[in-house]
């Protein structure tokens, strides 16, 4: 079943830079998709449009029945509740503990305290941080912080997990650990879309790869790798 349909999307920034041009894409439920491309190829724009930080100038983006391109600012939460987002720079709240950071995502949706505790402990053990619940983000390593972010992104059981260069700040070993976690989440049925620069990861994972070049879809390969692409 189709989860995301991007049709004829065009985006030009105010500076005149064309970020995406005549872009089409379809992603099925349960897929794991890498989005790769050089800096300025439009992959960040594409990712940002999926969680509606940016709006397309033309075309439509349908995610789980919601037309993201036409979504009003005050209705954005309807979309965001269906997806989780993982960032390169983590975006954790420094004054909250690991537990509170993850619980925060459920609290703002008004869940009951007991339900929150059960679910937060569940996802924290999934990402392997069960013994660090009381620590603050700055007491954790980069890889651990990223796992907290992943836990927060999936705590509300989203259908879609969007990752914007989640391993960009991490060393290769830690990156592979993060990929293992993401793979597990994908195996449980969550669709994962991940923008990355990391060759090794893409080559090892053997997932669907979408290559962007100057705002266009250059290649779309099942079980692809980075090696045979040049940029």
């Amino acid at each position: 079943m189709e989860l995301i349909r991007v049709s004829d999307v065009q985006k030009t920034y105010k500076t005149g830079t064309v970020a995406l041009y005549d872009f089409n894409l379809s992603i099925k439920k349960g897929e794991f998709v890498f989005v790769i491309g050089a800096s300025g190829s439009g992959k960040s724009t594409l990712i940002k449009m999926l969680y509606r930080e940016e709006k397309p100038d033309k075309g439509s983006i349908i995610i789980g029945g919601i037309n993201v391109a036409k979504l009003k600012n005050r209705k954005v939460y309807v979309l965001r509740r269906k997806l989780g987002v993982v960032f390169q720079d983590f975006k954790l709240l420094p004054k909250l503990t690991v537990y509170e950071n993850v619980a925060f995502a459920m609290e703002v949706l008004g869940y009951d305290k007991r339900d929150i505790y059960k679910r937060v402990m569940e996802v924290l053990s999934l990402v392997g941080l069960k013994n660090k619940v009381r620590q603050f983000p700055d007491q954790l390593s980069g890889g651990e912080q990223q796992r907290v972010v992943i836990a927060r992104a999936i705590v509300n059981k989203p259908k879609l997990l969007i990752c914007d260069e989640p391993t960009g700040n991490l060393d290769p070993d830690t990156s592979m650990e993060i990929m293992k976690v993401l793979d597990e989440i994908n195996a449980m049925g969550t669709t994962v879309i991940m923008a990355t620069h990391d060759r090794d990861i893409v080559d090892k994972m053997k997932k669907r790869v979408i290559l962007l070049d100057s705002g266009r879809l250059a290649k779309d390969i099942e079980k692809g790798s980075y090696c045979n692409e040049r940029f």
Partner: protein
Amino acid sequence: MRGFRTVSRYFRDALHGVFRNFSLSLASILCITITLLVVAVSLILSSNVEHFSDSIRKDVTVVVFLKNDTTSEEVEKIKSELISIENIERSSIEFKSKTDSAQELKEGNDIFSATVDTWTDDTNPLLDSYMFKVKDIEKIDDTVKQVKELSLAKDKINNINYGEDIVHQLIIVFNTVEKVCVAAVIALILVTSFLIANTIKLAIYSRKREIEIMRLVGASNMSIKIPFVLEGLFIGILGSIVPILVTVFGYGSLFDFFNGKLFGSSLAMLVEPMPFVYEISSILIVIGIVVGMIGSYFAVRKHLKI
């Protein structure tokens, strides 16, 4: 049940917000406290200035001198004619016969006393008079004109005296003073609101990331705004406590210290503390709460675009 839980969560979040970011909340609270103190002082000052000018204006007395041939029945009739004029303060109408005036003169001054003693009823050069005060001093000229045109009185009036020149100047000066006071208070309240709103804006700016993450994890704009607006409410209330205490107790003891009047003059009476201090207090807390809430609302709204 769910609605109740949501509301109580909003309040809890707002309280958490105040204490979790205590240094920033404290900055906002102190800002409100200091600016509201200035507002309180200026409100008290301007109210008292208005009170002075009011009491002086109310003290202006018009004296109507009657001709010597006025009979006592005519005097009575003139009084009823005066009562019929709208702008004359009825209870202030007072008749003073020339004998009373002579007596007053005699008691007031030793030099005159011997002279006054030589007067008999016939040789008394003074005149019978009516004195009254007006309700609206701006219309005093018209009122005097009306008195002069009264059917009976117009033939019996010798002259009317109310210190025209000084009264006219008083009206101009007091009108200006009042306008300046009102303008100063309004300007001060605007500056205060701006300062408070700006401090809150800075405090909320430092929580930009928190708001951004709330949006990212799917909180609706409403559920993000409400705790911040309630936080603004709490900060407004906390910030007005000291100014209100200062107003209630400070003004009360100031009033007692001066015994209710400045320079011992009954013209410079201070405003009675009750219910005056409560009126000022309610103005202060309303400013604190409204500016706190509106300031928070707009500060949060700015960060809801991501």
